[in-house]
């Protein structure tokens, strides 16, 4: 791993439980995320990984427990407030604005940062014009970074899957998040696309110092790029620690490979 400096706890999840009627999606989950680290949540299908992410992101309200972000504790948040606090996310099943161009999709990530008056924007007057240009420059940097220059004006719906995943990441990056939640960024990709995506994730983490919470199925990838890993199974936490620790954890091996091993 590179010599990056891992800071204090930025996100602290305490005793989170989530129930849908009688179904327990999550039971008493606690873990923390430190500044600048890549923290992964892994587990078999239906382990509650996405539910966990949705709790942090404010899509679900946990039945019990609390989440502390940068020293502020909350037990109820909506997605917008979470976005305002500097948490961005990508989606497992792409949730892009399909009819809009790549550029507009990523620009929409700047939405919270655009302050100028609607009328000034429409008339393209002075400060509004300058603001738009400033945001556009930022977005162009992201487009360069993700190597999608050639598709700037293409409607996202027409792009191949791997590129759509990049646009999803680009939109999240446009928010200049402090914490980036990635929900299976490599699902359904081929080896080459996976390698590209890994490189982007590592670069984001390295260059911008963005803290990353990553959900992933592919154990190989997770073990390679993560600083620490949480393992969930049936909504319970069964392992937590550095990749090597987790790899040798009996419970984790059992969950992944079955009881016979």
């Amino acid at each position: 791993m590179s010599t990056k400096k891992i800071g204090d706890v930025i996100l602290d999840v305490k005793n989170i439980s989530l129930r849908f009627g009688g179904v327990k999606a999550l039971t008493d989950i606690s873990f923390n995320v430190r500044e600048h680290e890549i923290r992964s949540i892994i587990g078999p299908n239906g382990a509650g990984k996405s539910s966990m992410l949705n709790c942090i992101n404010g899509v679900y309200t946990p039945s019990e427990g609390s989440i502390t972000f940068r020293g502020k504790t909350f037990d109820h948040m909506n997605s917008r407030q979470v976005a305002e606090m500097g948490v961005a996310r990508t989606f497992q099943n792409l949730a892009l604005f399909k009819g809009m161009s790549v550029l507009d999709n990523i620009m929409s990530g700047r939405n919270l940062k655009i302050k100028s008056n609607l009328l000034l924007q429409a008339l393209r007057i002075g400060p509004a014009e300058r603001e738009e240009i400033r945001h556009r420059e930022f977005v162009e940097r992201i487009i360069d970074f993700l190597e999608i220059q050639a598709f700037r004006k293409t409607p996202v719906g027409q792009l191949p899957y791997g590129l759509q995943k990049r646009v999803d990441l680009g939109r999240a990056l446009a928010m200049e998040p402090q914490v980036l939640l990635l929900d299976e960024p490599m699902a359904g990709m081929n080896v080459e696309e996976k390698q590209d995506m890994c490189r982007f994730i590592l670069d984001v983490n390295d260059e911008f110092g963005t803290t990353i919470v990553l959900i992933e199925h592919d154990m190989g990838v997770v073990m390679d790029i993560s600083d620490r890993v949480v393992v969930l199974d049936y909504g319970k936490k069964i392992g937590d620690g550095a990749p090597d620790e987790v790899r040798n954890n009996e419970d984790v091996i059992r969950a992944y490979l079955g009881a016979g091993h």
Partner: protein
Amino acid sequence: MAFFLETLIGGLMAGMLYSLVALGFVLIYKASGVFNFAQGAMVLFAALAMARFAEWIPAWTGIDNAIVANLLAFVAAGVVMFLVAWAIEFLVLRHLVNQEGATLLMATLGITYFMEGLGQSLFGSDVYKIDVGMPKDPMFALESIFQGGILINKEDVIAAAIAAALVAALSVFFQKTATGRALRAVADDHQAAQSIGIPLNRIWVIVWCVAGVVALVAGMIWGSKLGVQFSLATVALRALPVVILGGLTSVPGAIIGGLIIGVGEKLSEVYLGPFVGGGIEIWFAYVLALVFLLFRPQGLFGEKIIDRV
């Protein structure tokens, strides 16, 4: 030839009014995925408000300048439409987030009848006039080419200009502003829009407001041509085929669809009507819409429906 042109122009003018109503449908559908059956009721409501305020404001304030009074009435009716938009969002839509399209359609059906009733109890149920001082006298064009020229209503020309300006303003709003971008984003994916911090509720109020203003302009023009009365609400039914023709998600589609239907109605009535005993104007638009549903269900400009398997 001169007669053909006159019919054509008459059709274009009628079509433009259909376009304005269709535009209201498209705006709301684009931004919230709701097929707003209440658009016609909103046109009636807005026109009633405008007509009544134009009477009340001079009576209350003693302003006897017709232009000022009309302007104030327009602003007052605009405020009323804002309140309507806000109330619809707060009382209805907010509670129906993520519901099926059919549920939302039924909700707007309810809103339709409620607004028709409320409009009449608030503003009365007589036939009112909106007089914004549009010239009623006809003018003649191309007199050098055709003997006697072509008869055109000045009123229609002004109405067309207003409609064109409105459409231009809307396309700038949608394409060039961050709010417009947010609106398009909400239309595509609610959840993703929320995750990047777009406030769903505020966006909906904005969309319904914009649709309300479009309804107001449409109501004002129709009202000044034909008077404001209950039947204005059924204008929405005439705009349905326009939306099917143009595509539910396309602003240019609404405009061109409206023009095609307006022209088609008039030309078929005049040139085909005598052979079948007339009455084509009433059903022409619907038959055209049916043909489109069979052969091009997404409309002329709608987004093609492609699903990855």
